[in-house]
């Protein structure tokens, strides 16, 4: 009996993973239940779980639809999406970093938000136009919609500024350097500013902002990389000069890469200024700073702006929502997206996460009328541009951000960097990017 049953049993065991996969398909495909992958927006994933539990509870009360959500850390989210994209074992709705929007759009796995779909979630006019601009490649139907808005701004320590006799935050880079030099005293471990020089993402964002101010771009209109253009060389040289020439940033910062080290130095009065994103407010408060301890101002710009230079102070940062095209619950997924981007929910969620609403109406709430939030809003609405919306945006960040990381490391080791040093490194990066794009 056992001998007869053994082959069948063996086949059953071997096929078990396959059956399990089919079974999971069945469970996600039933009734009014959708799955949602959320990104980590709060100080911890536990906080996110708490916040989103309430949100999905409210959504169920409204619509009768159950949302099974999972909060995924930023370090894992991209690979989880990649795996889901490849295997087809995907959630219905998910959060994405908005700089990934063109990359994910190119995989053709996501639902296009065309006119009809946009109408189903309340229309595109209610969104902030800059945030909406970072939801897919230019000229194509977007495959995501904004959820949380973020932008860079200059954070400065009020007490340190007062002690140094500085009345107002700098609005140009020349003023920034002057103020930072007044605030720097390496002997006491105090520096004018702090940066995350080891972070490829931060470096890529700085490159983009400074390049725009110098009148450059990272790609030309045909999407050919222009990393080594004279404007970009000037932009990156200035960035490395913060350590090597002006000596207003600690050489140690060339190693900082966690996204919390520079804000940590700022909170501990080791640095008087940082240029960071909206969500940093929560980190600073967690590090013991009171909101009255720091001011938030617009990011300095070059003065005068060189020919072609734009007063860009931030890329359009933020988190978007996407729907997998394969979803068997398209209507429920759209309803959920509509709910998450509704004015009421936008106010609630962005208040908790200290981020910016992506729908215009939400700004009427007093929480977003404070000087701090208004500064962020001004930057996002008037002085922000989307990072290059190309499918290879991730490669661009790795190549450009990685090269700037090496240049900062060289600057930090005490070797003064010339324009030709920067030019040589950026040319090499440009060749690598061209090769990644199949252009070399």
């Amino acid at each position: 009996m056992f001998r007869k049953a053994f082959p069948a049993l063996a086949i059953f065991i071997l096929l078990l993973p396959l059956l399990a996969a089919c079974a999971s398909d069945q469970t996600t495909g039933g009734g009014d239940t959708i799955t949602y992958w959320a990104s980590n927006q709060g100080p911890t994933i536990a906080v996110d779980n708490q916040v989103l539990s309430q949100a999905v509870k409210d959504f169920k009360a409204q619509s009768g639809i159950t949302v099974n959500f999972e909060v995924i850390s930023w370090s894992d989210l991209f690979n989880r999406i990649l795996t889901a994209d490849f295997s087809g074992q995907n959630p219905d709705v998910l959060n994405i970093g908005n700089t990934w929007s063109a990359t994910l759009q190119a995989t053709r796995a996501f639902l296009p938000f065309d006119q009809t779909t946009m109408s189903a979630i309340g229309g595109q006019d209610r969104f902030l136009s800059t945030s909406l601009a970072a939801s897919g490649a230019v000229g194509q139907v977007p495959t995501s919609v904004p959820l949380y808005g973020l932008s860079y701004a200059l954070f400065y320590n009020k007490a340190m500024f007062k002690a140094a006799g500085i009345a107002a935050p700098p609005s140009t880079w020349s003023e920034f350097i002057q103020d930072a030099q007044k605030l720097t005293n390496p002997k006491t471990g105090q520096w004018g500013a702090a940066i995350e020089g080891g972070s490829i993402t931060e470096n890529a964002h700085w490159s983009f902002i400074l390049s725009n101010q110098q009148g450059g771009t990272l790609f030309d209109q045909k999407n050919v990389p222009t990393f080594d253009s004279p404007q970009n060389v000037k932009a990156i040289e200035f960035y490395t000069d913060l350590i090597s020439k002006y000596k207003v940033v600690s050489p140690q910062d060339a190693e900082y890469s966690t996204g919390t080290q520079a804000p940590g130095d700022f909170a501990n009065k080791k640095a008087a200024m940082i240029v960071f994103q909206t969500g940093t407010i929560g980190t600073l408060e967690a590090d013991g700073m009171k909101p009255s301890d720091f001011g938030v101002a617009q990011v300095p710009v070059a003065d005068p702006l060189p020919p072609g230079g734009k007063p860009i102070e931030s890329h359009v940062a933020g988190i978007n929502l996407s729907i997998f095209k394969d979803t068997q619950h398209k209507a429920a997924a759209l309803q959920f997206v509509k709910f998450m981007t509704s004015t009421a929910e936008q106010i609630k969620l962005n208040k908790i996460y200290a981020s910016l609403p992506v729908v215009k109406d939400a700004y009427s709430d007093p929480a977003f009328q404070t000087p701090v939030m208004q500064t962020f809003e001004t930057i996002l609405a008037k002085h922000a541009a989307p990072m290059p919306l190309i499918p290879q945006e991730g490669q661009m960040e790795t190549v450009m951000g990685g090269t700037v990381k090496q240049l900062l490391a060289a600057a930090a080791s005490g070797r003064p960097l010339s324009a030709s040093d920067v030019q040589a490194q950026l040319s090499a990066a440009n060749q690598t990017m061209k090769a990644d794009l199949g252009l070399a």
Partner: protein
Amino acid sequence: MSASRATVQTERAVRQTERQPRRPRVSKRAIPYLYITPAVIFELFIHILPMLIGIAISLLGLTLFYIHYWTQAPFVGLQNYGIALNFGGAAGSALFHSFLITVAYTILVVGLSWVLGMTAALLLNGDFRGRGWFRTLFLIPYALPAYIVVITWSFMLQKDNGAINALLSALHVSNPPFWLVGTNAFWSMVMTATWRSWPFAFLFLLAGLQSIPSDMYEAASLEGASKWRQFLAITLPSLKPVNVVLLLVTFLWTFNDFNTPFVLFGQAPPPSADLLSLHIYVSSFVNWNFGLGSAMSVLLLIFLFIVSLVYLRIFQAGGASNE
């Protein structure tokens, strides 16, 4: 009544058995194969199949444009291999640079691990009080999870707050260097990997040392051989079978090391620490070019296979001639 019916049935069964001589259902020759069948099936699923899929992917233009509809990825033949092996191109020269870094890293880590492991094994092979305690202590780096080891080293290697530079400052070294950025990143990686892998060499070599008969050393001592001469003439030749396996295994592990550079430097390591495994990972999972990444993996596989084969040929042949 029922008892007599049962008896009749039994007799009938016995007669049938007598008529058809009992043959074993499975021949004796098949039994060993049946024993290894489950292992072969799992080997197929766990190693061979993924390897074959990897080779198949290397022949496809599987980029991000085809991730979701991967069955539609175009067949590109050996194009990915051409890109990887075109050392004049950006991708090929980066791969070659990564290969050279990996070779240097492997030679240093394997060499240092062997020297440290051998030294510790020789010291702890003697009989002295506390020997067991030391043996346990030396094995701790190997017992710790790789991630914990590397992340601890990354803290120790920080410029201003790290223990290494604190020590250098205490020794009056002015302006201690960066360890995690720039060219020193290579040495940081070598230090970390050596610290993690030398206890394995120690364990292996200690076991080998214990199998060498002590009377050989006694005879050599009587003949007036120095300790160094005994090491060269008795210890090393006796450990040859152990060393052949140990060096091959540590070579393969080190050449394929991913944890050390990834945990120390993330997905954008300094050029001095761009090991092949991480380089391939970036090609595949950051650039989403799985075709090119797979071609690089297959080239790595071929290289390691050839090196292992040549190595075993040389040392097995040497072993045979010794015998």
